[in-house]
């Protein structure tokens, strides 16, 4: 799969650090937008009941007004709005009142029997969907229940095994699940999620294509840690389609390897803001406005395949915006810009190339020693850059020297890095608005490295300084967080390999043990003799 980055926002193409991917994209991109506009930015940790870090909150301020955000939710979304959206039953009451279409359904509590639920199901008609009242992340949601018997089984699982006594039974509406981003009375973005799929090239096997697609997904910040997983669902989907891992699909043929469309299950986000019908957009706006105090939200709709009708299934106060910023197909929509325009009208968007050190912020808040950090402001105006390689045969590049140079740079207000290239070489790259300060610093850095050291000017556009602050880079500078992510991914890969190995070995031993194999032994012996002859 080729990822077309040209459709992404210019200023966010490369700027997402590995620590900010997945569910932190909203926090990172919105705070970055505010910071680049010259707002002051603070991160603070939210502690859970037992003192553990449960969330990171950020606040932006222009000196007069301060707004606090959690994920993509700002403080102009009221607590009441959040309380309503967190409760599907109340959400539907408000939607009903405003005349917004939603799937008919009813909430049942522990006092009501499975029998009550079954009789309600026959009223609204099958197919139905059963979900826990206060579940999250799709846990305990059973879709497309077509018969009374299947509903009985689902009830035993959700109310019995999982222990969710309070459940919602709804009409099961089929169609495309569309996520819309609504700000006041405007739909800023609409995205469809297509189930995990690969496109044949006539050369590679399905297995190889999945592997290639997962590699490509890593280039999409939003999908970095959301590969197409080898799970039961994948095997059953392939089995039902009679597709084997070793099959080589013809060029251009799309093979869906899963049935659900969640991005977390390997699905592809596809932007369709421009082609999404106005009437359906109006429904989303109406849904968002139906809830008091909800100035912006993510509205989930199920829309039939020819996009003529749709119902609202959920309204989110804190939707992830990654699919809008980094779609696999279609154009990116600048939600952070719209939000900052809304919260801080009058501030101008600055296409500054700078980023702040998000991984440092996260590390410091995570290890618990620090609980609040205000970032140094984003540099305004153009900066001069200087990059040199300092070397000397007698030089010994150690942590002490790197620290000295770093302290010197931070003291002079420079941005950039000092990198240990080898035992006797170090690279210094620095930015400052005043040429003289930059030159003085380089001179002093060379002096620190030793009297006989030489400096050679480098011009490596790949190494453009974008991160503010002055950093020490060792040749191997993977952060702990990045290593942990890698570890998790590799662990999963190992599990998968082990499972496949077991399956193959089991199959081999079954064959070897089978009567058929034993009875045909003579054929193989003959064959071997024939070959050796």
């Amino acid at each position, binding site marked *: 799969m080729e990822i077309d980055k040209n459709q992404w926002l210019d200023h966010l193409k490369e700027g997402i650090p590995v620590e900010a991917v997945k569910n932190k994209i909203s926090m990172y991109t919105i705070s970055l937008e505010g910071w680049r506009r010259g707002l002051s930015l603070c991160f603070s*940790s939210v502690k859970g009941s*037992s*003192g*553990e870090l449960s969330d990171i909150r950020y606040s932006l301020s222009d000196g007069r007004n301060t707004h606090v955000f959690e994920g993509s939710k700002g403080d102009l979304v009221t607590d009441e709005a959040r309380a309503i959206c967190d409760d599907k039953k109340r959400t539907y009451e408000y939607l009903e009142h405003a005349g917004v279409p939603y799937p008919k359904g009813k909430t049942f509590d522990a006092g009501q029997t499975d029998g009550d639920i079954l009789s309600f199901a026959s009223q609204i008609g099958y197919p139905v969907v059963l979900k826990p009242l206060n579940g999250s992340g799709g846990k305990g949601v059973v879709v497309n229940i077509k018969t009374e018997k299947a509903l009985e089984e689902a009830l035993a699982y959700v109310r019995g095994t999982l222990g969710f006594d309070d459940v919602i039974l709804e009409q099961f509406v089929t169609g495309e699940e569309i996520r819309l981003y609504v700000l006041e009375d405007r739909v800023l973005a609409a995205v469809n999620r297509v189930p995990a799929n690969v496109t044949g090239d006539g050369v590679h096997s399905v297995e190889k294509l999945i592997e290639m697609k997962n590699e490509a997904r890593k280039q999409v910040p939003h999908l970095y840690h959301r590969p197409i997983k080898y799970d039961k669902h994948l095997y059953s989907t392939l089995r039902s389609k009679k597709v084997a891992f070793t099959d080589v699909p013809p060029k251009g043929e799309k093979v869906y390897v899963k049935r659900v469309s969640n991005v977390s299950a390997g699905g592809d986000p596809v932007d369709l803001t421009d082609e999404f019908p106005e009437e359906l957009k109006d429904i989303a706006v109406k849904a968002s406005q139906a809830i008091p105090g909800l100035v912006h939200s993510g509205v989930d709709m199920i829309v039939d395949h020819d996009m003529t009708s749709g119902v609202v299934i959920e309204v989110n106060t804190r939707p992830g915006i990654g699919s809008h910023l980094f779609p696999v197909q279609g154009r990116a929509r600048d939600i952070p810009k719209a939000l900052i325009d809304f919260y801080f009208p009058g501030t101008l968007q600055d296409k500054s190339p700078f980023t*702040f*050190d998000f991984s*440092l*912020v996260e*590390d*410091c808040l995570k*290890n*618990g*020693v*620090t*609980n*609040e*950090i*205000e*970032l*140094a*402001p984003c540099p305004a105006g153009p900066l001069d850059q200087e990059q040199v390689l300092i070397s000397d045969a007698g030089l010994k590049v150690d942590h002490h020297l790197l620290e000295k140079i*770093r*302290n010197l*740079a*931070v*003291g002079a*207000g420079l*941005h950039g890095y000092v990198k240990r290239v080898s035992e006797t070489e170090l690279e210094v790259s620095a930015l400052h608005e005043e040429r003289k300060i930059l030159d003085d610093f380089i001179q002093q850095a060379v002096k620190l490295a030793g009297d006989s050291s030489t400096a050679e000017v480098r011009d490596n556009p790949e190494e453009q300084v974008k991160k*503010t*602050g*002055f*950093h*020490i880079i060792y040749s191997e500078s993977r952060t*702990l967080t990045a*290593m*942990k992510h890698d*570890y998790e991914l*590799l*662990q999963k*890969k*190992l599990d998968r*390999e*082990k499972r*496949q*190995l077991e399956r*193959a*070995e089991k*199959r*081999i031993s079954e*064959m070897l043990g*089978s*009567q*058929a*194999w034993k*009875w*045909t*032994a003579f*054929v*193989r012996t003959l*064959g071997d003799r024939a070959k050796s002859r």
Partner: protein
Amino acid sequence: MTVQWLKHLTEEVAAEASGHYLCPYLVALEGWRRGLTLKWYKEAAEPFREMKTWYTQKPGKLFSLTGNDGKTYYFFRTRGNTITNRAVEICADKNLTKAELIKGGVNTPPGTSVRASQPEQELISSAEDIGFPLVIKPLDGSFGRGVFPGIENGRQLKQAVKKLRSSNVEDLILEKHVSGDEYRVYVVDSRTVGVLKRIPANVTGDGRSTIQMLAEEKNRKRMQNPRLKSCPIVIGADEKAFLKKSGLSPESVPDKGSTVFLTAKSNISSGGDPVDVTDEFPDAAKQEAVKAVKAIPGLPYAGVDLILDEESGKAEVIEINPTAQIGSLLFPSSGKARDIPGAIVDHYFPETAGKGRSTLYFSFKETMRPLESGSAVWAAVSPAAPQPLTGESVIISCRDHDIQLQFSLRELAESYQLHGSLKSKSESELEMVIAGPSESQLENFKAKAVSEYDVGIGPAAPASGILRPGFAIEDEPRKMKENLRELELTITEVEKKRRNAEKKLRMMRRSTSWKISLPIRAFAKLLRKLR
């Protein structure tokens, strides 16, 4: 020589903050332990723009403390903003200091300011006005740099001025030499909190070792003192010259029990010993120090340098330091430590005085991280966990552990609201320090750890009294790297096996023998079904 440090300020607590970072850390820590909000700032952060500060490129010297009522004070090292900039200016200029002291009726040696570029004759006549013997020193000097004591005549004065000129010092002060020993008195709000005597660098003989060996041995001991570890005794050219005066060299072997001085300078930074003399110091001299601090407008607390003539009991104030170091008073070589950080925080937040303090401490290095790279303007330190905490140290035995086990144990510990640390001791042993709100919480955690992760937990040993908040895995990054490498190798291995198995399977399925057995298999399947 007996030494008694404060129980809540040990070598362990101060381990990460040394040199000029020790004092600010100690004051910040005291405030934090009392439940005040602590923030560290980068150079030239907004609240410090107007404050007189120096050498702040590296973070760790600028911080603020905020009380429950929101009242905030800003600090540069030990000096907070109840001390005015004017007071700092006065004390930085020995001539201005002298004028204020005289105005306040404080004993101070007569003196006058001169310039190194003045004609020698003028200098000599100024000196004669004051009268020999005298001291000549830079007007704004500190740490004993450029001080020439005991000048007896014009010739010695000319020599001293020549040296001062060559090191580019212009503004000087000529002062009457006062005989006696020099003391540092720390005064907070008209109360003498501690008195220190600084003994010049010295070694005591054992009858066998050379002076050089004795100095090295003493340096090893100094390494264990948070204040002295950054100030070892160095036997350089000056020290050798000093020894030579009494016919000694670094190779001389002093008699057992005899003390040999290596310099006349009493500075701690030149290898001197800080000795606490608070209890035996005469009251009258203490009062003179208190009077001196009062004499400077806008100076509620400071370190006062004075010379006490033991015979006459007269104390003469030489210098006042509003940004005084306090490490020597907390970690003396002999005597009792004096709680200067406590007195300073009492001054700013009297409502917290005597209300107790947490025994936790925070990692100085970790709190500096966001500031070191210039990425942050300020960073707030997470508050100390509520007291009291009970802690213990246990050995956890397991079949060769990996980092995942450590992560799991940390997660479990955190779910039981425990603080502590984990360290790998050997292939099959981990050392874990845990602290929590109650004994039962620790027991519950241990029981769960045993049942959940199949580990053995040894008997509990008392943890050192002081703990850090949060839960640290000490060798995490290194371990993580190793584990990643191992995991990659395992994957390659399993992958190879899997490929081979699949290849074999494919070949078996394609083999003629398997193909020709198809009717037999179909028949067998049918048979099974019929049965």
